[in-house]
């Protein structure tokens, strides 16, 4: 199908972005919005292209984190054109997002704003304890990734607010990471996913589940899960009882495999 008609303009200045009118939408890579528009599930009066805004096309290394501009593409991260906060883990995750043709245009900020529960960055950035920097008419605010997504395709972004950048904490080389996703076919959205982060140097541990019905779930008692005192199945069961998910076998298996990957790193 073809998209319903809309207008198009290219933003020239970041300040224009906080003055969107009713029915206007940002577009960067168009890899999530595009299909929805082509299927006419989404209509817009105007698309404002932010893919080439210099302010969103940065990737800065700071002492404790790396700041990825919202319009950095998956392929740029895959190809190592951006600084690496965490032992190549983001690079590897980026390389397995959808297909190369999609990665060449899709952006990290766009993926988060779209907030598909099964998307890679949604779970990976949660696993890495990222922060999302938002700019709105009232200025900038930073939101922890686990507070950013509130439901399927739903975030805390307000009217006229946009994602400026994503801040990913740096991890020492001694830290270990596991990320597993189950897909029906290579490149498809995940059916279940999980991450495990073991950063002993900073005393930071995180186990997270993705591809749930809503936002990723950061599991309580991560250290107990990692050390084996709390089995993956029990951990998921306890945490999900609140969320009423009917079947979580694949999520348990994804967590088990992510744990295996991360612990593999520990032995090295």
């Amino acid at each position, binding site marked *: 199908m*073809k*998209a*319903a*008609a*809309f*207008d*198009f*303009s*290219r*933003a*020239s200045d970041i300040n224009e972005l906080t003055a969107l*009118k009713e*029915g206007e*939408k940002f577009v960067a890579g*168009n*890899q999530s919005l*595009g*299909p*929805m*528009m*082509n*299927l*006419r*599930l*989404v*209509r*817009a*009066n*105007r*698309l404002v*292209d932010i*893919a*080439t805004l*210099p302010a969103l*096309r940065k990737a800065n290394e700071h002492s404790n984190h790396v700041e990825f501009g919202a319009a950095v593409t998956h*392929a740029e991260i895959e190809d190592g054109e951006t600084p690496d906060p965490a032992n190549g883990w983001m690079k590897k995750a980026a390389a397995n997002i*959808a*297909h*190369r*043709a*999609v990665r*060449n*245009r899709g952006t990290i900020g766009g993926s988060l704003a*779209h*907030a598909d*529960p*099964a998307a890679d960055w949604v779970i990976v950035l949660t696993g890495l304890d990222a922060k999302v920097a938002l700019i709105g008419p009232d200025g900038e605010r930073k939101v922890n990734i686990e507070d950013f997504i*509130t*439901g*399927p*395709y*739903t975030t805390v972004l307000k009217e006229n607010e946009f994602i400026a950048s994503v801040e990913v904490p740096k991890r020492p080389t001694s830290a270990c990471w596991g990320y597993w996703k189950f897909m029906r076919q*290579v*490149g498809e959205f995940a059916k279940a996913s999980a991450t495990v982060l073991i950063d002993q140097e900073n005393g930071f541990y995180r186990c997270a589940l993705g*591809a749930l*019905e*809503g936002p990723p779930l950061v599991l309580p008692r991560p250290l107990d899960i990692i050390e084996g005192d709390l089995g993956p199945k029990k951990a998921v069961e306890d945490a999900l009882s609140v969320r*009423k*998910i*009917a079947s979580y076998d694949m999520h348990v298996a994804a967590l088990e495999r992510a744990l295996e990957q991360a612990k593999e790193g520990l032995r090295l």
Partner: protein
Amino acid sequence: MNTASTTITMSINGREVSGNAEPRTHLADFLREELLLTGTHLGCEQGVCGACTLMVDGRQVRSCLTLAVSCEKAEIETVEGYNRDPLMAEIRDAFKRHHGLQCGYCTPGMLAAVYDLIRRHPEADEDIIRRQLSGNLCRCTGYAGIVEAVKDVLAGNTPEATVTPGPRAFIPITEAKPATGGEESGEVVRLETGSSLSDLPSRAQLSEGIELIRSLDLDVSSDAIWQILKDPQKVVSCIPGASLTSQTDHNLIHGVCKVAVGPMAATFRGSAEVSTNDEALSGNVIGKGKDRLSRSILEGCLDYSVSANDNGGSSIKIKMLYRLSGPLSQFGRPAIVEEIADQLLKQIGVSLVEAATGKTTASNSHNSVGGISILLKSLLNILKKRFDRKL
């Protein structure tokens, strides 16, 4: 909507070309319809099949998900190009020798993906080849011939690629066309007066559907809740975004339900048949609704029953079987529908209690509910039984 088209200039296969395109025109349509370069094929137009893959500034992209207006000054290489490119010549020859194509529909996209694969993974083994080509669907070859062709090119003295990724362009801003209204957004609501029972799905047809079971505990007696539940009008008024358009004999209801999830919004119009059993405090609804804009259909059946619980309150048990088809179903995965249903149920529970206790129903609200969506609709249907549902 009258969206002005603009003139776009880009380099296609090494030649500068200008043409007119509306903002909504994607690159593949621009090439095919405006420039008559029909070598670029369109399969799904939603980024799944890979048939439209081509090079923009030396990088493979889906041309169905790339707006032509965003390609101003870009360098495009289509299957008609690669003139005198030794690598593409070798790939084409290998495809021919290894039967890497049959009907040829996927071939233009496949060639672009293979070209990029060989450039980026000169050491690729079969596993890498298959993974890298997983975004390009071929229904004829079983991929074996394609993989063999790629291996063959990699095994030999692979020629240098002449199409290489350029720096990512930073284009000076141009303010485009004057704003126009959102086309088709003000669709005229037509009542579906022609629905008859025979349009509704049967239980047998829904047996392969997705099942959703929920219960809702309320602080109101079961009798009071039943007074609401047996009246479709009242139930509908408790459902955010839903309204009844008409009610005919044999409990056939027609209605509308608006739902919005994230950027998606749908208006399901449809009919449902409701039957209730006053003695058992139970009922069921079978219905079907359609969202015209997305051409998506939601159909399902809902069984519900009310029982008293220990503390003087009541609980409503709901079992629904539904089937969502059409474009929306791609975004309405069962888990997401469950989440939406749960959110919706919470709001419906509050409204039911208000209605049963005589307080004004908070939701006369025919506004659509954010965050609920697909499931919602289904639930709505269920609940209300009736009306359309949708998404």
